[in-house]
């Protein structure tokens, strides 16, 4: 079901991009710890936020920052647009390249005439993505852990950080699954990636609107980002099984649709 040679091919093909993404995420989380330890960022932000309307103040203080504590700011590092952008970009690019990207590059015809079945091709791509996204999440966690050690911030233990890593991984899997469903019917990797990014952006902003405006809060359960809350994971009651299950379900549904379409479609 899995072709080792194809897996190695994917490592060589995507390795540099994923390595850079992982390095940037590690660096970013490390820098968040550095910022938290080296400046009185909490006070500065609290002063800044006081000048904003009460609804926005409430949103920023509780939902995004988890309060202006050091713990809240480190948790915010995982909800920061940069952290979202790095992981989501990796998930979307992997999914868009898996089918539509290979079709666009024109190599799919030669590649799929090699001795592996479509199922092997598909599941090798999925396995590779799961491993890559898992490592990416771990790289981010490593950045936070390293930052805590280097800057003497004994804020979170290994357990909560690993649970955060798992939730982040599931979020990325959800984006991978959704984009893969489009990739399996698409012809152009760029267009599929564009759809994936639009969905992610839409979800991110819809979540923001739902949090800012109570009348629009009904849209929150319909956004993917609603099910990933670093603040709840690190500062609240911990990992919500419902949230994890929802992200997993989105990923599985997306991948199932993709497998079903890929099995039936003509290539290229």
């Amino acid at each position, binding site marked *: 079901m899995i072709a080792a040679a194809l897996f190695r091919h994917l490592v060589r093909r995507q390795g540099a991009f994923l390595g850079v993404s992982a390095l940037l995420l590690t660096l970013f989380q490390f820098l968040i710890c550095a910022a938290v330890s080296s400046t009185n960022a909490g006070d500065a932000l609290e002063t800044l936020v006081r000048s904003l309307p009460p609804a926005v103040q409430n949103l920023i203080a509780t939902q995004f920052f988890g309060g202006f504590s050091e713990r809240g700011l480190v948790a915010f590092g995982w909800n920061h647009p940069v952290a979202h952008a790095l992981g989501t970009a990796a998930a979307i690019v992997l999914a868009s390249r898996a089918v539509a990207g290979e079709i666009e590059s024109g*190599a799919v015809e030669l590649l799929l005439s*090699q001795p592996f*079945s*479509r199922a092997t091709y598909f599941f090798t791509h999925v396995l590779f993505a799961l491993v890559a996204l898992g490592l990416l999440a771990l790289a981010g966690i490593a950045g936070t852990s390293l930052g805590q050690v280097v800057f003497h911030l004994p804020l979170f233990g290994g357990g909560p950080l690993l649970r955060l890593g798992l939730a982040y991984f599931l979020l990325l899997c959800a984006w991978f699954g959704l984009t893969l469903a489009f990739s399996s019917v698409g012809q152009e990797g760029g267009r599929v990636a564009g759809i994936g990014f639009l969905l992610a952006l839409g979800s991110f902003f819809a979540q923001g609107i739902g949090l800012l405006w109570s009348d629009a809060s009904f849209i929150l359960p319909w956004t993917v980002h609603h099910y990933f809350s670093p603040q709840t994971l690190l500062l609240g009651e911990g990992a919500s099984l419902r949230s994890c299950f929802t992200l997993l379900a989105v990923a599985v549904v997306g991948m199932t649709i993709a497998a079903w379409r890929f099995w039936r479609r*003509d290539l290229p």
Partner: protein
Amino acid sequence: MLALEVVGLHKRFGSVQALRGVSFALESGEILGYLGPNGAGKTTTLRILAGLVRADAGTARLLGEPAGQARVRERLGYLPGELRLYGGLTAQALLERFASFRPSRPPVLRPRLLEAFALGAGDLARRVKFLSHGTKQKLGLVIALQHDPDLLLLDEPTNGLDPLMQRAFREVVQERVSLGRAVLLSSHVLSEVESSCHRVAVLRAGEMLAVETVATLRERLVRRVQLRVRGALPAGLAGLPGVTQAEISGREAVLWVQGDVNPILRAVAQAEVERFVFAEPQLEDVFVSFYAGTRS
């Protein structure tokens, strides 16, 4: 032994009926030319055989197995018509990459192929995106052939190759066929099919017009002979055996001849020939000959 058996293939893409009940077979140790104009359905057929496209109806068996099985692909060599390769890799890395997909069939023919196609260390060290179209095509042929496949599916294989490399390609293919390998060679160039193949399958608008030997096809072809002499033209040119049509004007004649050209040669041998052109037949001549047959 049958290397390939295709029965009643149908394929529709939206409103376009690409294949309409295509059937043919290919024996081991044989080269079958798959001849047709652009859009005839040649590439669609080859993609179905390679398992890339699903047929709406009909069956295709390669080396005794249904098309698309991984087991079959192990023994298959495939060259796409629109060859696109990973441009960022060096040619050497690309060959290694594709060889790694077939661990049970090592690239035993690679040295022989690199020599035949004049691909040197300099070419292999360069990134694929910097190679010329012809060199990329040669790389595609090496990828398709390096593991010594039992069945080769080649879509326009000499596309972009210079005449010297076309000859090298023909030699390599003849060599493999003499060892019992089977080749399906798709082309829209009649001379290529004539010079390489044992039999020819003629496809037009998704329909198989005929599957016959190259000799039979040659017999069937209507070729054009242009002639100019000093003095008077020999009498009775239009009535010679095989001449289907003649345009005679003064010292010049244009004759369309089917089959043997020797009666014309014997007739003009008595005259002092100033110009004699026996044009290579084109693909459209094949179809003209088929329609002529249909009308008669």
